[in-house]
């Protein structure tokens, strides 16, 4: 049997130590079993509910109509993430603390009564009202901080009580004898108390990118200063407790502890790489992310060395969950460091890759640690039921489910990022993601079953079975790797005590330093930048637009649609000039967002008509057949044509996005260029080819590329089904599901014959003033294929130069040429002189059937300036005009000749 070398046994043997009075174990059998059980059961109850919210949210991606009927997707997501962090992890950590703190500190917790008060406050003052409020639309759109301010205040009370409950015992002994788990518990509670108000309250009152800087800090601190310390406290506790051997090196564990608390708070801004937050701040965060990766390698190496002999699949399930948590911690941390790399970030930021990463952190690393701690505590409760079979089965189900989910989301993210960088149409990323989203939802089956079995295993089964299993497992490990227990070292140095005090002060100072560096400094820099670049009179939101903004926030729109065009080519090409800090300097709280399922909305103003927005909100798939957006029928009186105030407000708000920059153009751009000096990032935004590059935004006719059909007809039909049939119908008859809600109604293409150059123009530029958008995100080959499909729908009679053409010409020149032009090319004098929103028909490039011409002459076209002439022209005159129009058409061959 090989000799075990522990980190502190490399020197000469040290005589056994007689513990000093205050170091003698004073732990007694558990006195807080009721509190442990209460928090344990609350943890699993919260977990099952939070997972249910998560499953419903994931179903939105595969069955988009489903959740619209239950609760909006955004609200479900709020409830999911807050439930996992505060309900599940919070309760499981507290349960573990009631078990571990008396043993670690040798002192009881402050008060059992206080414990029950804390239990009530945590679950019935924070979690339950938080859930009820966010599900009913009272929330703040800040990631990992969605519970409203009132609940935040109660939460701060809860964290304070937790500190009062658990920390005094540690301070009754010298710092130099504190075990690393104790340090993590102290650090976790103290730093959570400092970072929670900073991250949950400050961004509510600080607008735009400056607020996002604080949000970024909290997104990272929530994981780094609350979840990770508690999870590591559990791992450092359970591994030696379960193996019966000390950790490999307390030196490395303390190196990791201080490294984590010094470096973690500096990471926050890496959630907003290439944003308007000053690049110097981003660079610090990126650098800190790399250093953090190294710190984590030290922590994980130490934990893995401590696990020697136990094997990855230890017999004790608590240890098995702990060892898997260690592995997840390594992967997720290295992932995090890589994600902060600027090159990699360009591809994977905003994609499902990051969602996979966060699930690996919270549902993998932290949850496995939480389970490990709960199981270990449960095993020690004399009268706790323990069903070994169910618990062992749960491990395999949860592990396999999470592995599938994270791998799946990682791949999905890479695919999405590549498609975005390639400039493919937005819906292409949705279509490509479909199989991954189905697998993600299916992966919830083993995960949920596993959690259910685990819960069952802790509620049913023989009492005391856990302790027996743990004892057997410990014997098995020590047969492989016996403990070297004769190496008790000498008494601690006084200098060490001083160093821990110094490090504690430095840790708190460093946290303040991080908030100053990554929060206050960018705020000040951005203030200067905004003052220099913003227009003198920035248009403020109206009351209706403000209400719309609140709706946008509470429905979680910012969780699918970013409002930041990053300073990278792919974003600028797709959406337009990168977002400058002053553009959202009046957005409180900020809506920058960290995920793009739908397109960025920074420049949403005037890209769509109001009717299109109403149809899209009421029935998203009616206008975008492959959309997965939830429908918001609650904002309408049964139809998009009868919007309630909420819909009007929301659309009013959407039409403000990007408005300030657009209104400032072009004088503002010139002024900004003069004011910015040599700032390369501002210049990059100012040098963008287009301020608003939204591919659907309608433009004046012209500049369409020459289109030559190179794509198979089948591809054209597929594109039609994905993009056009919602309005124009499956067969081009103009009766798609959205048709009744749009004015002018989508064209019945069977009644028209178009020349290719006109169709190219319409597809490229859209039809200004109508809901027909541009399709500039499609390749010329794809547009050419669509033109073939449209021309194939035409079912009109051959052109006949019959009827009273002379009379028709007379009537046309008298009544129609003002708009349609003397030559019928849609370029009459009124077009230039009157506010005609929709271009009049160009009859030289478009021919209507006789029936369609007569109907339009008689009834006009709703939603356009084409008036009904039925009361003013006789039937003969109308017939003559319709016949005359046939003669104006110049088919492609004729035109080219």
């Amino acid at each position, binding site marked *: 049997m090989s000799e075990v070398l*522990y*980190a*502190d046994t490399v*020197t000469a043997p*040290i005589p056994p*130590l007689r*513990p000093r009075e205050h*170091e003698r*174990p004073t*732990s*007694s*059998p*558990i006195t807080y079993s009721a509190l442990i059980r209460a928090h344990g059961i609350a943890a699993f109850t919260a977990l099952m509910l939070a997972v249910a919210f998560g499953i419903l949210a994931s179903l939105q991606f595969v069955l988009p109509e489903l959740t619209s009927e239950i609760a909006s997707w955004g609200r479900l997501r709020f409830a999911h993430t807050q439930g996992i962090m505060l309900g599940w992890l919070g309760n499981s950590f507290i349960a573990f603390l009631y078990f571990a703190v008396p*043993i*670690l500190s*040798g002192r009881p917790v402050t008060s059992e009564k206080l414990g029950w008060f804390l239990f009530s406050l945590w679950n019935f003052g924070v979690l339950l009202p938080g859930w009820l409020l966010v599900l009913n639309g009272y929330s703040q759109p800040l990631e990992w901080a969605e519970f409203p301010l009132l609940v935040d205040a109660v939460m701060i009370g809860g964290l304070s009580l937790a500190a009062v409950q658990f920390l005094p015992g540690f301070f009754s002994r010298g710092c*130099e*004898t*504190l*075990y*690393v*788990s104790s340090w993590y518990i102290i650090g976790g509670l103290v730093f959570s108390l400092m970072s929670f108000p900073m991250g949950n309250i400050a961004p509510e009152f600080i607008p735009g990118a400056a607020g996002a800087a604080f949000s970024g800090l909290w997104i990272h601190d929530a994981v780094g200063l609350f979840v990770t310390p508690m999870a590591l406290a559990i791992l450092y506790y359970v591994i*030696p*407790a379960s193996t019966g*051997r*000390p*950790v490999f*090196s*307390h*030196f490395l*564990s*303390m*190196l990791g502890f*201080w*490294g984590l608390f*010094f*470096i973690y708070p*500096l990471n926050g801004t890496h959630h907003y790489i290439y944003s308007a937050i000053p690049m*110097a701040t981003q*660079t*610090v965060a990126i*650098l*800190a992310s790399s*250093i953090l990766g190294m710190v984590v390698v030290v922590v994980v190496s130490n934990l893995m060395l401590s696990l020697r002999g136990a094997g990855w699949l230890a017999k004790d399930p608590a240890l098995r969950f702990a060892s898997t948590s260690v592995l997840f911690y390594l992967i997720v941390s290295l992932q995090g460091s890589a994600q902060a790399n600027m090159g990699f970030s360009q591809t994977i930021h905003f994609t499902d890759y990051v969602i996979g990463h966060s699930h690996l952190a919270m549902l993998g690393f932290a949850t496995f640690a939480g389970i490990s701690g709960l199981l270990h505590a449960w095993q*020690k409760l*004399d009268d706790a039921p323990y069903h070994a079979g169910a618990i062992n089965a749960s491990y395999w189900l949860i592990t396999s489910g999470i592995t599938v989910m994270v791998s799946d989301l990682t791949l999905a993210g890479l695919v999405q990022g590549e498609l975005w960088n390639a400039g493919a149409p937005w819906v292409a990323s949705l279509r490509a993601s479909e199989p991954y989203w189905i697998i993600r939802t299916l992966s919830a089956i083993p995960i949920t079953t596993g959690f259910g079995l685990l819960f069952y295993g802790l509620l049913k089964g023989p009492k005391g079975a856990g*302790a027996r299993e743990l004892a057997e497992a410990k014997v098995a490990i020590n047969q492989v790797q016996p*403990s070297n*227990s004769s*190496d*008790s*070292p*000498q*008494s*601690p*140095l006084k*200098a*060490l005590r001083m160093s821990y005090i110094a490090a504690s002060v430095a840790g708190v100072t460093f946290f303040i330093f991080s908030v100053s*560096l990554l929060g206050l400094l960018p705020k000040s820099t951005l203030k200067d930048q905004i003052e220099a670049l913003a227009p003198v009179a920035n248009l403020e939101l109206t009351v209706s637009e403000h209400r719309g903004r609140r709706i946008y926030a509470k429905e979680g729109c910012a969780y699918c649609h970013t409002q930041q065009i990053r300073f990278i080519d792919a974003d600028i090409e797709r959406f337009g000039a990168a977002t400058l800090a002053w553009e959202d300097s009046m957005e409180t709280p900020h809506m920058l967002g960290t995920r793009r399922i739908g397109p960025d909305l920074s420049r949403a103003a005037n890209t769509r008509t109001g009717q299109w927005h109403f149809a899209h909100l009421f029935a998203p798939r009616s206008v975008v057949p492959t959309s997965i957006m939830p429908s918001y029928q609650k904002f309408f009186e049964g139809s998009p044509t009868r919007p309630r105030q909420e819909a009007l407000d929301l659309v009013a708000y959407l039409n403000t996005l990007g408005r300030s920059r657009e209104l400032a153009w072009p004088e503002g751009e010139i002024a900004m260029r003069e004011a910015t000096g040599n700032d390369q990032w501002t210049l990059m935004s100012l040098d963008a080819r287009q301020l608003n590059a939204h591919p659907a935004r309608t433009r004046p006719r012209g500049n369409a590329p020459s289109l030559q059909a190179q794509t198979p007809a089948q591809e054209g039909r597929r594109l039609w089904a994905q993009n056009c049939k919602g309005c124009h119908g499956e067969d081009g008859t103009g009766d798609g599901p959205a048709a009744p809600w749009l004015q002018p109604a989508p064209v019945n293409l069977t009644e028209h014959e178009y020349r290719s150059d006109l169709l190219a123009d319409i597809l490229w530029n859209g039809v200004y003033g109508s809901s027909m958008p541009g399709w500039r995100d499609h390749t010329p080959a794809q547009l050419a294929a669509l033109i073939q499909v449209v021309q194939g729908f035409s079912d009109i009679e051959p052109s006949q130069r019959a009827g009273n053409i002379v009379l028709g010409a007379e009537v046309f020149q008298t009544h129609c040429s003002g708009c349609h032009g003397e030559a019928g090319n849609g370029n009459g004098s009124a077009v230039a002189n009157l506010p005609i929103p929709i271009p009049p028909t160009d009859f030289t490039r478009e021919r209507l059937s006789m029936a369609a011409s007569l109907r339009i002459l008689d009834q006009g076209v709703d939603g356009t300036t084409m008036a009904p002439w039925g009361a003013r022209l006789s039937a003969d005159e109308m017939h003559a005009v319709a016949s005359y129009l046939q003669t104006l058409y110049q088919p492609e061959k004729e035109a080219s000749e």
Partner: protein
Amino acid sequence: MISALIVYGTIAAVLSYSMLYWLKPNWRQSVERPKHIFQRQLEAYDSRQEPDESDP
């Protein structure tokens, strides 16, 4: 400048902590001491939890 400060500060802190650990046996033993204390606490806790066999 701040980035350089973080990098050099981190390296300096880790190096000084490591050198101290390597060159000062007393320091090393003191740093490692808490894990042994914790182990004894665990053992003591387990022994107290086991039922006393002398009880009738």
